[in-house]
């Protein structure tokens, strides 16, 4: 059942709304900190260094050259192919998520530059139904990869997702195959795919596109894992180590290439992009 048919697709821009509150209390150190300072500091507490959650828009801002972002997403929104209804209808969940995030779906897709190197970048929004991958996210990722191919530039995907979107059933599952199929075309053209894993990168997103980066960089503090603690507990009731599915666990076990602090992520991307860009 199609929804929002009568509405226009809205393009993401990075203009900020005025924030009324001047101060916020850091959940980690308890200090009262100036909100603007926090924002300017990539949402890291200026007092104790705690990472606050970045929205997809804030994430993009933290990574790209100012003013370089242009929304290149496909003008699509979610359907409800299963007419899914749990404690809430899927249609209602989508409306609520759009309201809450001011985004049409759980991913932002744009062209931009990082230190003047052109890229296409997709960033998942965890606040939008857990950043889950349904048909729209799958299509936007594929569209982004095709944009990168036509612009002959790198593709960057910043994951923040609980996995496949249950409400679209097998269609969500098959987005894993869809994004994987299209990702191969980028490789055929020798264009790099940099996968950035942030808190959290899990389930079907980890078991497909996010794990297929030429280079995989995790943000410090990321949670990276296929099956969550609850699933493991329910299935096999196993004792899990304290660092289970942390960035440290992932690098120790060879799941990722690098761990970067939030403030270093942009520099890491620039280094990798420059290397792949040489002599082409």
């Amino acid at each position, binding site marked *: 059942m199609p*929804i929002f*048919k009568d*509405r*226009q*697709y809205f393009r993401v821009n990075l203009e900020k709304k005025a924030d009324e509150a001047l101060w916020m209390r850091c959940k980690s150190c308890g200090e009262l900190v100036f909100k603007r300072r926090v924002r300017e500091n990539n949402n890291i507490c200026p007092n104790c260094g705690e990472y606050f959650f970045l929205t997809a828009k804030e994430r993009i801002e933290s990574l790209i050259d100012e003013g370089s972002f242009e929304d290149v997403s496909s*003008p*699509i*929104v979610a*359907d409800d*192919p*299963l007419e899914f*209804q*749990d*404690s809430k209808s899927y249609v209602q969940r989508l409306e609520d998520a759009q309201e809450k995030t001011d985004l049409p779906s759980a991913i932002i897709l744009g062209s931009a530059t990082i230190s003047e190197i052109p890229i296409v970048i997709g960033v998942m929004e965890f606040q939008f139904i857990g950043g889950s991958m*349904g*048909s*729209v996210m799958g*299509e936007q990722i*594929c569209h982004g990869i095709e944009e990168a191919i036509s612009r002959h530039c790198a593709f960057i995907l910043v994951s923040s997702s609980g996995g*496949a979107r*249950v409400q*679209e*059933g*097998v*269609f*969500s*599952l*098959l*987005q*894993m*195959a*869809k994004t*994987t*199929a*299209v*990702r*191969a075309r980028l490789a055929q053209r020798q264009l790099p795919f940099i996968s950035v894993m942030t808190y959290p990168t899990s389930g*079907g997103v*980890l*078991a*497909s*596109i*996010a*794990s*297929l980066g030429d280079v995989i960089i995790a943000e410090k503090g990321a949670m*990276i*894992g*296929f*099956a969550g603690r*609850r*699933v*493991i507990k329910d*299935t096999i009731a*196993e004792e*899990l*180590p304290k660092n*289970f*599915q942390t960035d440290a666990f992932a690098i120790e*076990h060879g*799941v990722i290439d690098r761990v970067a602090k939030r403030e270093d992520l942009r520099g890491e991307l620039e280094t990798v992009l420059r290397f792949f860009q040489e002599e082409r």
Partner: protein
Amino acid sequence: MSDERTLDLLETKIQELRELNKQDGIDLSAEITKLERKLATLREELYTNLNDWERVRIAREPRRPYSLDYIAEIFPNFYEIHGDRLSGDDRALLAGLAHIDGHRIAIIAQQKGRTTEENKERYFGMVRPQGYRKARRVMELAERFAFPIISFVDTPGAYPGLESEENNIGGAIAASIACMLGLTVPTVAIIIGEGGSGGALAIGAADRVLMLENAIYSVITPEGAAAILWKDKERVKEAAAALKLTAPKLHELGVIDDIVPEPLGGAHKNLQETARTLKEHVVRHLDELLAMSDEERLEARYQRYRTVGRYSILKD
């Protein structure tokens, strides 16, 4: 409505009557015929009106044929090969060489255990990273010799746990999907029981995807969906229905190509018949795939996966 156990009990009773009939020279033939008819009617009633949760139960039925049962029926010369060449041999994922209809093929199959002992070895059909690496190794072998690949999907899901995460289960599934989609050889996947999420897709991203009539294929178990979305583990029936995980529903949604019919009551009622029907379906799809040029087949596969999904296009 009667359940399967009751019907099985009735069947046993009829069998007992038959024996009594022979032994004592009492003529019960008329009664027996009547009971047999009643049984057939009840069975038909039961199995033509299965709700989704009941199908989930049949898909997980412990007497249901597993991969090796079909393999023994369809591929008498099946030659099993082992190991991922890196760290071990996952017994939840079998591989081997075989013939079908004059073609040499490679088989990749998820295998559940029949006994507690066997399930300890086979992890209840839950595949670990080494199993997906084994699948990939066999896919590459098949590609070198242009053997088509037939995969049997039957898993509750990839094995969740510390060992799996330490060995990069996410990356192993992703690599298996990527490898399968990148093959030139034709691929046919058959979901014979449980198609559990990414763990199933890892060997299910094929040119043709078939399902046995009472198999299921889902992004999450009904139990998982009930716990996460309904916050109530008891509401599995609603979750099963909402997920549209049965073969008829998935066929209607256009995500699978064909349904392989099962005997009334499920595949376990007649393995030989199910295996015969399954073989016919596989051969037909394989022949269609082999009739295409490599370019045509690869383009069809690409389009199949490139276009999967449902969304609305809006005015820009």
